[in-house]
């Protein structure tokens, strides 16, 4: 174990796992409470189009994916608003478009030298210290927001309209949260992978609400769950020699289903 932590790439992966556990643990509650789970799927899959843009123009895929995801988050909202369709329909249209665009762009770039599977399913060898610093920066911004704006965000999650009328800047806070979600997804892209990262948006709060009926409890249990499956899954993936993202999501989903079954059996 100690020799494992001496490996530079693995230490980076452990650090980023801790940060992501906290970020997704808190975020998950707000996303699941607003029944916006599909938004996580939409934004993460959109990142594929962004990565492809980066490959095509020889830019850092992290930045192209980030910019692409931020734009997409805004466009998804606008399409839903002005096209008078539900948010889910808008996401459904947009994310398949972004993935298709990605596939077309990558084909345009002849003989690319790039670990595409790593981006799709996660590969901890790709994590650089740059990713750690970005994740740390995001954590700082997010903790600041949570520390000072938690109750306002809770209010708008519960009842958007009354929050607006009571003086909460709903539009601004919503946009900030959306941008942060996009950024967190892009940061976790390398480790968990574009296809699987949306599980981390949904699972923690779902698990938390099995154990607690209060928002504080749900968030704390969500973080504990994340530490278990993200950090634990990382070690497990090393010993089993399986892809880390896939190991995390598989074990997390199994834990969720087992807990759910145990709970419903105990209720009888």
């Amino acid at each position, binding site marked *: 174990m100690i020799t494992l932590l001496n490996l530079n790439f693995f230490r980076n992966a452990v650090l980023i796992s801790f940060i992501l556990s906290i970020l997704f643990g808190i975020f998950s509650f707000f996303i699941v*409470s607003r029944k916006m789970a599909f938004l996580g799927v939409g934004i993460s899959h959109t990142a594929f189009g962004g990565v492809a843009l980066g490959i095509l123009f020889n830019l850092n895929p992290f930045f192209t994916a980030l910019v692409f995801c931020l734009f997409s988050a805004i466009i998804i909202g606008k399409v839903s608003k002005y096209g008078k369709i539900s948010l889910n329909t808008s996401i459904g249209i947009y994310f398949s478009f972004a993935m298709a665009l990605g596939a077309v762009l990558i084909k345009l770039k002849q003989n690319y030298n790039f670990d595409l599977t790593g981006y799709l399913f996660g590969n901890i060898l790709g994590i650089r210290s740059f990713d750690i610093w970005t994740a740390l920066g995001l954590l700082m911004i997010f903790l600041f927001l949570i520390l*000072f*704006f938690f*109750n*306002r965000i*809770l*209010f708008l*999650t*519960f*009842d958007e*309209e*009354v*929050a*607006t*009328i*009571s*003086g*909460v800047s709903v539009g601004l806070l919503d946009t900030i949260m959306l941008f942060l979600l996009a950024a967190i997804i892009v940061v976790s892209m390398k480790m968990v992978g574009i296809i699987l990262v949306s599980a981390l948006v949904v699972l923690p709060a779902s698990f938390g*609400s099995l154990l*607690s*009926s*209060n*928002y504080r*409890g*749900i968030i704390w249990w969500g973080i504990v769950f994340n530490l278990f499956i993200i950090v634990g899954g990382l070690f497990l993936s090393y010993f089993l020699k399986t892809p880390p993202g896939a190991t995390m999501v598989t074990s997390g989903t199994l834990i969720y289903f087992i807990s759910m079954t145990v709970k419903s059996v105990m209720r009888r």
Partner: protein
Amino acid sequence: MKHLNNTDSEKILVRVEDLWVKFNDHVVLKEINLKLKSKEILSIVGPNGGGKTTLIRAILGLIKPYRGKIEFDQCINYRKKGCIGYLPQRTQYDQNFPVNVEDVVSMSRYAQKGWWEKLNSEDKNIIFQALEVVDMIDYRSEHFSNLSGGQKQRVLIARALAVKPEMLILDEPSTGLDMVAQDNFYHLLVKLRDQIGLGIIMVSHDIGSVSLFIDRIACLKVKIHYHGKPENCIPSHALEEVFGKNVNFLYHDKECETCKKNHDHFIKS
């Protein structure tokens, strides 16, 4: 927002003048003239699709009018401290949100503070008083989703009161409540009017039982067909224009005999 110049002792909280609202060239509201004074309960009644919710959403500033003006008294610093208390329709919020009663009321208190501020003892007092007024203080640690429909409404009224409003706007508050809970709820509104001096606008499709508790009534179907005191018998042509011809109303008025206030349930047709 525009402010009214109130000079006389009777304070007008909000005045709506010649308000029109259109959705995609479809006229939803037209020629609306309405006012609400302090210490007054105004009920807006009308059929589904008559524009009741649209009217209060326009007053709340959630939708833009096509034409006309909405003016408030100086005491209503709109969307800031001491603003309007609002109770939305029950479908608008998550009935099973994982919070307790005190959390719900605290939320609107937090919204009144600066983002760097925590709640102080004065805020706690306001929250407790609000819960006391609506008779829910004993349930303050109870989980919100465990409450009955009537209790939830009371908690949300407390949340509205915690912004220290001069005016309350309630959208179909009696929907889904049984007769006893409805009656208790209307008595609570009377108490808020008489003890705190609030002006209250209440949207309702229940024209009958509401008339006992309110000061003025407005019948709305795109236009306002009647606006006045409920005792003065709503003219039958107004009821017909709003609700249609083949509807009978169980309705309280001066000729009622056996009710508490010497009222009977007078059937208009």
